[in-house]
């Protein structure tokens, strides 16, 4: 934990070039200035242009998503009819059901993975186990091994477990929500732990020592000092976990059972006929929903940061 708070050097007022090379220096500086404006413009364009197209095509009056054939609101009407229990098209009902499954699996696995991942990060940061270095590196394994490998190994693992339970107790287990959630937790622990660990590394350990000095016990120190300081890391880690879980296709499919169709599986399953703009409409609604949530959490964070919080 030697690398606490970055050593601060003042870069703000340092001239970028030597005084002798005035002309090239000026040029570099100008290019830099223009670049500073253009780079984010380009990044935002690449980030948002496809999403903007997705939203535009959710109003497409066509069976497919690729060719524009006029404006319609019917895809949104379908979804609202589907969720309000009215007479929904079969495909809409299926899609809304798949979204519900995705959210259930995503939320449960995120909560579990966040708790376990944070505990792993804390214990790796604070303990002095003999094999700590190795454990630390093993943590990165699920991040780097191909998804299909993990999916197959999980499927084999569950098969063995079910066989064992079957032979020892006679209870016949089948894959389903449980196996999918365990699978998602398995890969998400690493992501959460890595993000939280980065946050812990940047934390000033003297703050905890100070709390101890002032008479707080370990638990109080954790709740009052450590947790608030690493909270942004935990939130970021859990959001990453939620996104990965909602995106996942391969691990979900290999460990799926009856009635566990998730949204990614549904969308891929449309390939046989055609992906309809209804998928765009649902994605747009999810986009609005998540933007509101992120906006709200940013607002809360801004309000909180007015308190003396980031002394680290």
């Amino acid at each position, binding site marked *: 934990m030697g690398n606490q708070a970055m050593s601060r050097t003042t870069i703000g007022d340092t001239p970028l070039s030597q005084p002798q090379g005035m002309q090239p220096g000026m040029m570099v500086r100008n290019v830099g200035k223009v670049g500073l404006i253009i780079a984010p413009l380009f990044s935002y364009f690449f980030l948002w242009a496809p999403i903007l197209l997705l939203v535009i095509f959710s109003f497409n009056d066509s069976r497919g998503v690729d060719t524009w054939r006029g404006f319609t609101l019917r895809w949104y009407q379908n979804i609202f009819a589907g969720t309000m229990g009215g007479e929904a098209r*079969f495909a809409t009902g299926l899609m809304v059901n798949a979204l519900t499954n995705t959210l259930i699996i995503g939320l449960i696995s995120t909560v579990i993975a966040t708790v376990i991942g944070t505990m792993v990060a804390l214990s790796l940061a604070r303990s002095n186990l003999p094999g700590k270095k190795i454990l630390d590196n093993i943590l990165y394994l699920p991040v780097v091994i191909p998804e299909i490998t993990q999916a197959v190994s999980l499927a084999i693992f569950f098969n063995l477990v079910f066989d064992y339970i079957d032979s020892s107790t006679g209870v016949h287990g089948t894959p389903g929500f449980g196996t999918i959630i365990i699978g998602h937790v398995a890969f998400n622990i690493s992501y959460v732990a890595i993000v939280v660990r980065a946050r812990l590394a940047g934390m000033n350990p003297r703050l905890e020592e100070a709390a101890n000095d002032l008479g707080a016990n370990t638990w109080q120190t954790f709740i009052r000092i450590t947790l608030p300081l690493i909270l942004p890391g935990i939130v970021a880690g859990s959001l990453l976990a939620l996104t990965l879980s909602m995106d996942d296709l391969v691990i979900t499919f290999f460990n799926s059972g009856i*009635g566990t169709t998730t949204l990614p599986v549904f969308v891929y*399953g449309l390939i046989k006929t055609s992906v309809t703009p209804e998928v765009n409409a649902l994605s747009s609604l999810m986009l609005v929903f998540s933007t509101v949530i992120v906006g709200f959490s940013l607002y809360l964070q801004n309000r909180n940061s007015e308190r003396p919080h980031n002394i680290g």
Partner: protein
Amino acid sequence: MRVLVLIALLLSMFGITAAQETVLDTDWTCPEGFEGQQLNVFNWATYIGDSTVADFEALCGVTVQYNVYDSDDMVLTLMRQGNPGHDVAFPTDYVVDILRSEGLLAEIDLANIPNIANIGEQYLNQPFDPENKHSVPYVWGTTGIGYDIDSVGYEITEWSQVFECECRVAWLDSPRAMFSIALTILGFDPNTENPDEIGAARDYLIENSSNVVAIAADDGDSLLAQGEVDVVVEYGGDVGQQIVDCDCENLQYVVPVDGGIIDYTSIILLADGPNPALAQVWMDYILEPEIQASITNTILYPTPNVVAIEEGLIEEEFQNSPAVSLSDEVAANTFFIKKVSSEAEQYYTDAWDEVKILTGL
């Protein structure tokens, strides 16, 4: 009165409806004794009629759990791993053959499926399931040529025209399909396992690739609709949907006279499914003319149900299009892509990689 309505609503929420109303008019009646049971259907997301599932639930008083897969390979993989509880699935012909040879299918008692009589003779007892012991026909389809007649300027009827035309062409990213086309042109068996013939087909594809602008995974039909290409090797259903969608005269689909690729989708009875009896009731229900017609009218894949065709239940424009009502000459030359030995499968995959690398596509 209000209380009654409320109770009725509550009951209907639990699926205990008194009046069993169906969306489609049908004479089909469900055999007794299945009320309250469940059927687990495994299918593509929208590869079924809009009310097919709901009507079956109403007629039999059962629950259908509809699960989605995204490729035939996924069905294969899952079933090899151990059936998690699916009763029926809807794979392509050669996949039926693989599943059958690996013992992953259960046996059907055709006495339970009187509606098999509605299926045309020519669609039954196919090599992939010689006595229909494990599968019944669902829909069929073709792989052929989609093209924009305005930009090509003439009618296309043969495979060789795809390679000769001075226009922008997209191939289908399916080694077996593309090689079977080249093999047909060269006069070989489209399902050959001979490495020399496969090599000759590879050379033919490479030599005649100058007009190819894309090898399309499953979006060749949209490239055609957007005007990015003029000619595309594609599945008939995909091009058909674009033609319906654009409601235009210039887009055409043709099954080549020298050998269109034909494929069947079957309903299969999976081994170790929880409810094989209800699964066979489901098969009989699907083969009812009104039901199978409504499926075809929704997903735009031709039906093997000749009674439905005779009764005029299929939308006329679709049924009479040359891609569906194949002329005798065209029908006589169609062929299946068959399961080949794994060595031959490897030849095809490798040769296709070489084609892709040497053409830079």
